C-alpha cells in the first residue's frame, strides 16, 4: 500500500512513462536510473516512451496482496514500449483473452487507495482496437 507522497513524487514518471536513454550506448531503462546499467555512463537523457506497445508476458494474480482485494483477479503484464519495457496492469479485457504479443495502449486509471486515504491515478494499459 503506497502513500500520497510517493504517488505525487512519481506522477511525471508514471503518467508520462518517462524512461532514461543512455547517450553513450543507447540503452533505455524504465524506471530511469542515475547511471547506465550497461555501460556506466552518467550521460542519460529522459524521454517519454511510446504509449502503444505489446505484451511480452502476463499473469493473473488470484491471491492478492493486502490493499488490492478489490482489484483481484488482476492482470499484470510486462509490456514492450519502444526500446524499453514497463510493468503495469491490463484492463478492459477478460483474463482468458490476454495473450503474448497482444497490442495495448496506455490509459489513466484509478489504483488502490493509499495508506493515507488518497485515490491515486496511474498508467494502466488496455487492448488497442484498430
Amino acid at each position, binding site marked *: 500500500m503506497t502513500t500520497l507522497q510517493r504517488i505525487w513524487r*512519481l506522477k511525471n514518471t508514471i503518467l508520462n512513462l518517462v524512461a532514461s536513454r543512455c547517450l553513450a550506448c543507447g540503452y533505455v531503462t524504465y524506471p530511469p536510473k542515475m547511471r547506465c546499467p550497461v555501460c556506466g555512463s552518467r550521460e542519460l537523457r529522459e524521454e517519454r516512451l511510446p504509449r502503444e506497445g505489446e505484451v511480452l508476458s502476463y499473469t493473473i494474480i488470484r*491471491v492478492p496482496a493486502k490493499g488490492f482485494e478489490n482489484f483481484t483477479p488482476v492482470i499484470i503484464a510486462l509490456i514492450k514500449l519502444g526500446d524499453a*519495457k514497463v510493468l503495469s496492469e491490463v484492463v478492459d479485457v477478460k483474463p482468458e483473452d490476454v495473450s503474448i504479443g497482444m497490442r495495448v495502449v496506455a490509459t489513466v486509471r484509478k489504483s488502490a487507495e493509499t495508506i493515507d486515504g488518497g485515490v491515486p491515478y496511474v498508467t494502466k494499459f488496455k487492448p488497442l482496437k484498430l
Partner: protein
Amino acid sequence: MCELRRVYVAGVGMVKVGKYVDKSLRDLAGEAALKAMEEAGNEVPEALVVGNMLSSLIEQENLASLIGDHLGLRGACGFKVEGACGSGGVAVLTGYSLVASGLFSKVLVVGVEKLFERPSSDVIRGLAYAADADYELIYGVTFSGLNALLMRYYMSKYGVKYEELAYWSVLMHKNGSRNPYAQLRYEITLEDVLKSPLIADPIRLYDSCPLSDGASAVFLASEDSKRLTDTPVIIAGIGNSIDSVDLTSRLELDHLLASRVSAESALRMAKTDLREVEVAEVHDAYTITAALSIESIGFAERGKAPKAWSEGRFSPGDKPSLNLSGGLKSRGHPVGATGVYQLAEVVMQLRGDFPGVSVPAEVGLTQNIGGAGSNVTTIILRR
C-alpha cells in the same frame, strides 16, 4: 585480492522448518545457534551475524542484540544483514569476511524468519517488499506474480511445457519426504501439482514454496580454531552479485545475471569448475526459479533444465545431485534463513551425516537468491 585466511564451518544447527505458534523468533534462532555452538565444541563466538528479511512485520528489529543476549553473548560484536530472500547468503558472506579478514576467529551466523504471526495477506505483501515499491508494487503485483511473468516468458521463448516445470516439485517432495527438517515432508504426484489452485497464472500452489518459519546457524572458524571439530568443511569460494530489483530494465528476462556472476566469482575463488561439483542446493522458490538458477549457474543450457530434470538429471547420485533437502519447495523457505539452511545441508552432505537423502561428496555448492534474481550468493564448499 589480499591474502585471506581460510574459513571453516565448525558446526551447523537447524530447526525443523514449519509453522510455529509456540516459539518466538528468538527461540527459533537460539535453538539453531546452540546446536551449531555445541557442534563447535561449545566455543563462544566473538561475533554474531543475523540474516533476516521481514522481522519488521512482527515489530522486531535489532535482531543481533536480541538473539545475542538470549544466547548469553553480551559484549560480542553483532548486527543483522539483509538481502531479501537472499539474506541468509549475505549473512554467511559477512561472517566469512569477518573471519577471512582476521578481524575475528569465531563467528556465528544465524538465519531466522518468523512469518506466521501476521495474517497471510500481510505476509504476502511483506514478501513483495523485495520488489520495486515505486514501480511494481503500486500495481498490486505479488512476488508470485513477478515470478509468474518470468515463467510465462520462459515457457513461451523456449517452448517448455508447464508439466515439465511442474515435475520439479514432484522430485523435490520426493527428496524432502526423507528430510527430518523439511516442512512439507510428503510425496506428491504431477496430478497433485496440476490440480492445485492457481496463485498467479501459470504458477499454482505446488509450483511455489510454502510460507515458513525457521532458523539455521553455522559456526565459522579460522584455521587456528578448526580444532573445534573433527570434520571441518572449508568455504573454498564465495561470491555475491546484485541485479536490478525491477524486472523491466533487465537485459534478459530468461537469465539471472547475478546468479551467473556470483557463481563465476565463487568458482574462480575456489579454483575449481562446475564439473567438480557433486552436490548442490539451488534456490527453487518457484519451479521457474529452479530452472533459471540451474541454467544461470551453468548446470544446464538455456531452456533445457526442465527437460534435463524430467529425464532424471540432477537426481540423487547424479553429478551434481540437486536439492537433496527437498529445496525451498519441500524443505520450505524461511526467507532470511534459507541461505543458511542450504549451507548447513551441504556441509552435512560433505561430512556424510545429513539425515535424509545423502550422497558421498567432496565438493558442494549453494545458491541463495534474493528478490526475483536481484541479490544472489553462491558458495563452494569442500571437505
